[in-house]
């Protein structure tokens, strides 16, 4: 379990483009990127789940839970970014564009990136996908079933993943197929 502070710092650093994390840079990143706002609200909700298990934190839940519910509803309604609490998202998560993003009932590793209209996991399914570290998921991609996506894999825009993907593979098409392995997606990841 990463400390909350480090998780937030990692989320911000995805958007800072190598600049130092000053108050000014952080505020401008937060105002410009709707995805970052959504991730922060999601992190706040995770922190409430953490606080629920500790008796001394319960007074904090009284203002915290309504605040989270309102903020999450605003993010869902205004930006269409649905980050459900059933998803376990590692630090350094980045939503590239707003609109139609759904992340539910799945595990995502550190430093993942998703684009607009991406569906990772489904609210209805019993089992969700397990996505490794540093995976880049392009716009309109779908990773729905109980599949394992390896570390550093790249899922191209519009792809639909139906089977397990090895590490550092490049997946395109519907249904998705691995076109080559050993692809380094650090060149397309936002700098961190």
């Amino acid at each position, binding site marked *: 379990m990463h400390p909350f502070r480090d998780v937030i710092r990692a989320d911000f650093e995805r958007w800072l483009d190598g600049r130092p994390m000053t108050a000014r840079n952080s505020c401008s990143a937060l105002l410009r990127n*709707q995805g970052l706002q959504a991730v922060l609200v999601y992190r706040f909700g995770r922190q409430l789940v953490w606080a629920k298990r500790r008796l001394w934190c319960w007074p904090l839940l009284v203002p915290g839970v309504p605040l989270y519910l309102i903020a999450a509803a605003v993010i869902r*309604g*205004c*930006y*269409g970014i649905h980050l459900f609490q059933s998803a376990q998202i590692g630090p350094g998560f980045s939503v590239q*564009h*707003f*609109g*139609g993003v759904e992340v539910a009932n799945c595990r995502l590793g550190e430093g993942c990136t998703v*684009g*607009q*209209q991406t569906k990772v996991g489904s609210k209805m399914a019993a089992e969700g996908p397990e996505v490794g570290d540093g995976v*880049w998921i*392009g*716009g*309109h991609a779908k990773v729905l079933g109980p599949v394992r996506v390896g570390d550093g894999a790249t899922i*191209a*825009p*519009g*792809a639909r993943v139906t089977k397990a993907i090895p590490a550092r593979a490049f997946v*395109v*098409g*519907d249904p998705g197929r691995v076109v080559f392995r050993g692809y380094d997606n650090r*060149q*397309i990841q936002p700098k961190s």
Partner: protein
Amino acid sequence: MSRTPGRWVVSQNRNERVALSAIREDIEFYITLRHPGGCGSLRRFFSCLSSRGLLVLEVQRLMRHYNALRRQIGWTPRTLALKLLLLLGRIMAITLAKSDISETSTLDGGVYLSDHGYLIVGPRRLGRGSLIHQRVTIGAKAGGGPIKPVIGENVWIGPDCIIYGQIEIGDGATILPGTVLSMNVPAHAVAAGNPATIIAREFDNAALRQSLRTDIDRAQFASPCIRSGT
């Protein structure tokens, strides 16, 4: 039906005239699509006011106009007021339509953007008379530099399409729903599939562009040899 040009504010500023004439063409095009049989001015007014696609489009046009104006005359009360108006418009475009149109892209007058929203669109140029339906992404290739697609005139782009990279789409092309396109499309061709292929050439999409229907499938473009065999 036709609106006389004199009723619109005629500005001395050339940029403003260009922006206003583009907005006028957009409204004309939107009304002919939305109400093919024609409609009264009150209904026309309210249907323009409630159109989310027009909102997104006009905010982008005014944003371009504002950028040019500010470069020309700097900060004045007029540019400040326009800036505040555009900030509000942009927030409305994001929250109502979930759409983002790049400020750097050149959109010709008389294009249609979907009212259903979810558009992340930033072509280098979008030609006159083009239609873009809902949930479409147009942009630069990730890691492939900032060069964006060029879209010609009278292009029909169906829902759920993704168009990216340094490509050109010719005049009168048709991109069927659900296409993932990263290659050039010649004029009057039909592209479909994920990844995309050209499935037909010399297809006239005029009937498609005159209504807002999207019920077109690649099954309607069965190859001629199969059709002659049956």
